[in-house]
């Protein structure tokens, strides 16, 4: 009896200690794992603030961020999701080479109903949502509108006596443009004559050349032709596509890029511009944050949009969403992940993305009055309302991207012609199309 009592007591103590040690923690904390790519200072800080505020408003919820660069998340996320060890919520490339296969494998939650339930179908801009739509279903929540542009050092432009070349666009007076591409050429020639690099450009990572190509294609062909290629019977060896490559190549032949751009990294190319050694920098709105943070006097930097080759094409640029938020299909915390998304995609949060992280969220009707945005950021917001075309690498299959990106390098070293590169892109496109690996929104 004594022994039995002792055993009972021991068991009770053990159960009590287990209950005391594990019970409360199990009940109290739900962990939401988030993998994102906000490694730049301001977006990272803002995300941490969002996390802290959400946790405060949701006691018992802990958000664990895993901040990865693009290459790392591409290399690890698919395997992690497949193994059931991945995050609940992730920020990943939206294209058919990245999000597409995850969608097809059933690893991503279908958010179509959530768009209606949470009002995202009304609050978010349509075209960014279309970029995360596959087969008429919505699989992600985009958080950034970005587009290509030409940054210009106003001090250098003044020094060149070319400031008057910048004009306000007739339909969007807040936006700066040029009367024609000849005016751009005049600025570049004047820079070259003064020993200033006309266009800061580093193409060691050929994604940068890809942005130039996407932009030049917008100027020579417009969005309609790209739409025809992506969703109809258009071809990548179309003469207007070749024209875009010729423009890219001509600027190289004319000496508008720095020497050996294939040997210069993206950051080194930008540094040329930041240091005043280059007159212009063709890149995208994603660089605004770096300009604000790294240029000694950001007020001397502004941007303009290049006019199209043909007068019947509207003022435009190559645009994309970069990456998108998506929810893991196997996540046990789907609703929590969606609540967090709701929180960071609200109008109030949208203002903070703009003001604190220099990111233009695809949220409709954000009132920027009173936000005290720098003039350049105000222009970025205005530019996001243009009829924008495609920043192609994000929406294209991997082998097409390889043909395009290696083309940007081989054109610069003279081992390919514009026609060669266009033919390789068409070949890669046809292969991916035949294998069903292209983006089909509808």
């Amino acid at each position, binding site marked *: 009896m004594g022994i039995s009592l002792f055993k009972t007591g021991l068991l009770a103590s053990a159960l009590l200690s287990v209950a005391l040690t594990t019970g409360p923690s199990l009940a109290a904390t739900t962990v939401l794992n988030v993998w994102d790519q906000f490694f730049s200072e301001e977006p990272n800080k803002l995300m941490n603030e969002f996390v802290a505020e959400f946790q405060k408003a949701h006691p018992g919820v802990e958000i664990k961020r895993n901040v990865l660069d693009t*290459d790392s998340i*591409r*290399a690890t996320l*698919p*395997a992690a*999701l*497949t193994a059931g060890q991945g995050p609940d919520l992730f920020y990943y490339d939206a294209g058919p*080479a990245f999000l597409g*296969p*995850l969608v*097809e*494998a*059933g*690893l991503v939650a279908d958010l179509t109903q959530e768009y209606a339930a949470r009002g995202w179908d009304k609050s978010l801009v349509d075209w960014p949502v279309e970029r995360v739509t596959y087969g008429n279903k919505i699989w992600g929540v985009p958080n950034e509108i970005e587009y290509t542009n030409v940054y210009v050092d106003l001090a250098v432009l003044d020094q060149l006596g070319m400031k008057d070349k910048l004009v306000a666009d007739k339909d969007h007076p807040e936006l700066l443009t040029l009367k024609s591409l000849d005016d751009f050429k005049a600025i570049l020639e004047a820079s070259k004559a003064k020993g200033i690099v006309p266009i800061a450009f580093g*193409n*060691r*990572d*050929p994604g940068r050349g890809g942005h130039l190509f996407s932009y030049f294609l917008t100027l020579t062909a417009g969005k309609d032709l790209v739409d025809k290629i992506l969703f109809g019977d258009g071809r990548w060896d179309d003469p207007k596509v070749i024209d875009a490559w010729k423009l890219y190549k001509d600027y190289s032949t004319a000496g508008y890029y*720095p*020497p*050996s*751009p*294939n*040997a*210069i*990294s993206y950051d*080194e190319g930008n540094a*040329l511009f930041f240091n005043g050694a280059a007159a212009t920098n063709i890149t995208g709105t994603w660089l605004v944050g770096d300009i604000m943070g790294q240029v000694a006097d950001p007020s001397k930097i502004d941007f303009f949009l290049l006019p199209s080759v043909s007068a019947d094409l509207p003022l435009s640029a190559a645009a994309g969403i970069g990456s998108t938020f998506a929810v893991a299909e196997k996540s046990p915390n789907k609703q929590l992940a969606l609540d967090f998304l709701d929180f960071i995609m609200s109008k109030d949060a949208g203002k903070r993305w703009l003001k604190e992280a220099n990111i233009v969220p695809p949220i409709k009707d954000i009132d920027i009055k009173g936000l005290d945005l720098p003039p350049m950021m105000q222009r970025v917001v205005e530019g996001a309302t243009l009829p924008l075309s495609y920043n192609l690498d994000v929406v294209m299959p*991997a*082998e097409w991207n*390889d043909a395009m990106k*290696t083309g940007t*390098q*081989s054109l*610069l*070293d003279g*081992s390919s012609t514009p026609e060669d590169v266009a033919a390789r892109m068409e070949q890669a496109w046809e292969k991916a199309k035949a294998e069903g690996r292209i983006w089909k929104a509808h």
Partner: protein
Amino acid sequence: MTERLDQQSASAARRRGGGRPLGTAIRYLIFLGPAALLYVPFVLKPLIETFGLSLFAWNGVSAERTFVGLANYARALGDPIFWISLRNNLYWVVTSIVLPMATGLVIAVLLSAVRRGQRIYAGIFFTPVVLNLIIVGLVWGIIYNPLIGPLNRLLRAVGLGSLAIGWLGDRYAATPAIMVAGAWTFFGFCAVIFLQGLRTLDREQIEAATIDGAGPFRRFRKIIVPALSDQVTLLIVMSIIGSFKVFDIVYVMTKGGPDHASEVIATYMYWQSFMNGSLGYGAALAVMLTAVVAGASLAMMALRERD
């Protein structure tokens, strides 16, 4: 005597009824077991699984894998970038055998003659070995930079401005430029290994050769080099393996570009597997790489044993 002991132990084993095979098996198990516990799950199993994966067309995430047999291997044989990568790997093998080993040997011979501070000098030469290859890649990236790099500045300063090119962006110069950076990280290791070999050298033999009239070059060729054959074998095998496995320094410096010109099998395998969504093909490249490394290493060791 040993023979008699063996016979006694064998007959004792027979008397115990277990026989020799069981005892030997247990002994093998005791000695090999701990290693096998690590080797089987972490080396053998992934190797077999990678081979299995190479027989499928799979994007790495899809629930469906299509069995394609040896098609991924056939694809590699018809893939020009695979051949560029393999050619570059072979360049790496040759360069990493010749450049750092030759430099390391010369340094070791010179260091062996140093009486005071030999270890300090060896330590200095060994420093690049302990540096992370990512750091090495970044530092050499700056050295080769066409805008601010010291190499081009130096070339221009000495009147060789025509040789100042964009090293990492030139399809012909990129691979040699990365190989020089790679060799820089290995020569110190070679020097230390050779130095250790030189310490065991029979000094009397060298003195005798000197008395017999052999000059420094002859002594180096006829006595020192043959005496270092074990070290040479070790370093060659390490060079072969390292050269075929090279990845990080190439990835950091050029990502295999421009236009795949500096690609090696490991970077191409990574690109195919994780960026291009061809995990089956990437696995086939991995298997081919493993076979080449194993074959070359075994051939080298067989040659060495025959000598």
